[in-house]
């Protein structure tokens, strides 16, 4: 990377904070960050919708009701209905469960493979590192969304395959991120000291290195969830993601395309849902980065 360093002139750290620990300072900074706070509130609402969908909307969000098809927003249907007469509000609420599941699953896959491989790659260096890095090069030669597309082409459509495809496409990002951090941390005095007194590698990696990589991993996880929702919605929109009748925001938009001439509401609301969900993760991720990982830039 190019010369990245903390520029003290631009940092708005107040003098009284110098006495706090760095993580305490981070939390204090996060709490003062209004954007991150808003992201957190949005996120809570989003999780609330996902968990409380059966309470907030009674009935089956996938059951067609052709009598009321393509109804505009009204008292009975707050956000109108789609081409099969299903409540858009109900489908958005249940769709939040699907998208949240995807986001958690995708990041889970990314962390599960990316973090251990990144730790090993950065800690042991040498041949292992070389092979792992060439492999990540190979995966990063494709833009993320296209890699996910290629994987879907192999694995097939559906919820699970959407999660696996997008998850795998994110693994190289986690490997790179973790490895990069480990390379600097492994040269720190405390790691050298631990090695000098004969601490086992596993212990050093898990107890001394991993805790210091957690901040960038947390930031990446928050931003990664936003990306996962966008990617999954994209796949759903193209018709190769989660399949109907499962309420999924992207596929809702995909089928709404045919009716946008006279019924723009069908396409408008699922898009707003995607936007708000992604925005909440991005706001929170930005706030987390400013607070805990101020050296990175975008």
């Amino acid at each position, binding site marked *: 990377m*190019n010369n990245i360093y903390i520029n003290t*002139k631009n940092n708005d750290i107040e003098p009284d904070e110098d006495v706090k620990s760095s993580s305490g300072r981070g939390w204090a900074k996060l709490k003062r960050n209004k954007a991150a706070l808003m992201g957190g509130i949005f996120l809570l609402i989003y999780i609330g919708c996902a968990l409380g969908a059966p309470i907030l909307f009674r009935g089956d969000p996938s059951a067609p009701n052709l009598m009321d098809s393509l109804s505009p927003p009204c008292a009975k249907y707050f956000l109108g209905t789609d081409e099969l007469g299903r409540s858009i509000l109900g489908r958005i609420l249940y769709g939040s469960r699907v998208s949240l599941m995807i986001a958690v699953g995708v990041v889970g896959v990314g962390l599960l493979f990316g973090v251990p491989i990144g730790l090993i790659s950065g800690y042991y260096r040498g041949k292992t590192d070389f092979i792992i890095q060439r492999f990540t*090069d190979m995966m990063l030669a494709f833009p993320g969304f*296209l890699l996910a597309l290629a994987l879907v*082409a192999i694995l097939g459509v559906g919820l699970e395959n959407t999660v696996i495809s997008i998850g795998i496409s994110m693994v190289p990002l986690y490997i790179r991120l973790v490895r990069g951090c480990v390379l600097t941390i492994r040269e720190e005095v405390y790691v050298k000291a631990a090695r000098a007194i004969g601490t086992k590698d596993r212990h050093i990696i898990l107890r001394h290195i991993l805790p210091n990589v957690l901040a960038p991993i947390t930031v990446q996880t928050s931003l990664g969830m936003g990306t996962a929702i966008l990617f999954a*919605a994209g796949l759903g929109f193209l018709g190769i993601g989660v399949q109907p009748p499962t309420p999924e925001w992207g596929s809702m*938009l995909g089928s709404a395309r045919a009716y946008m001439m006279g019924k723009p509401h069908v396409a408008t609301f699922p898009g707003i849902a995607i936007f708000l969900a992604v*925005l909440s993760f*991005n706001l929170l991720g930005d706030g987390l980065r400013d607070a805990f990982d101020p050296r990175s830039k*975008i």
Partner: protein
Amino acid sequence: MLNFLLKRLLAIIPVLLGITLLLFFMLRMLPGDPAQVLAGQMASPADVEIIRVQMGLDKPVYIQYASFLNRLVHLDLGVSARTQNPVIEEIWAKLPNTVLLALCAITLACAFGIPAGVIAAVRPYSWVDYLVTIASLFGISMPVFWLGIMLMIVFSITLQWLPAGGIGTWKHLVLPSVTLAAFVVAFIARMTRSCMLEVLSQDYVTTARSKGLKEKAIIIKHALKNALIPIITVVGLQFGLLLGGAVLTETVFAWPGLGRLIVDSILARDYAMIQGSILIFGLLYTLVNLVVDLTYAFVDPRIRYE
């Protein structure tokens, strides 16, 4: 300079090999017989047999890979199971459309993103800065295909200013480019802002100010020039996002490009075509990264001597 160029060119060989390896094994990861997969579900046993012999699928894997590379070098990407046309011909016909769309989008994104980032950085924590920050956050969070649909509803269906889809005149290009650019402009603006903020606090900027230089000259000649390297890096990286976004944008606007071709091929399980178009996307991305590396050397002469 020549040395630098040569080194960079050599460095992409392993990447290219990696791309081909990944694609080669992609087909073999599918359940079933690769020859049947490539020929498509409708193919007769005789057709399958022809493909098997043609691709040497009865031979050991490393020979198969070698023959795969050999065919790639001769631009033979196989035959589409859907249209029965050679894959390379179909790709060749669609590629210019995608490149045109991507270039328009990236030009638009730079034209708006870099000035927006500079303005935000020059007046940090002012209303302009907040506006740019919020707008770029919105841009990053917005699904590109939804933005496309919304623009279409407003400008094509309601106002009827621009065509809703297809290709032909410059008017057809406006909505797809804007949609695709919106996605990338946000990243460029954010990166420009943070790089400019860093550069503007450097000693040489203070020196330039104390010499009494005009603020405009300081910002453009001294600051922006030094902030360009990371900005170019981001533009290059965003090109990957742009290609991914192109798949969605092309679908929204029925733009006959490579992205649309991939989606149609996936839906039709036309694996020769999927393989070919993903390969071309990979090559395109690698090429852009190479161009980015070479631009570094022009923007910052120090890089050449490293």
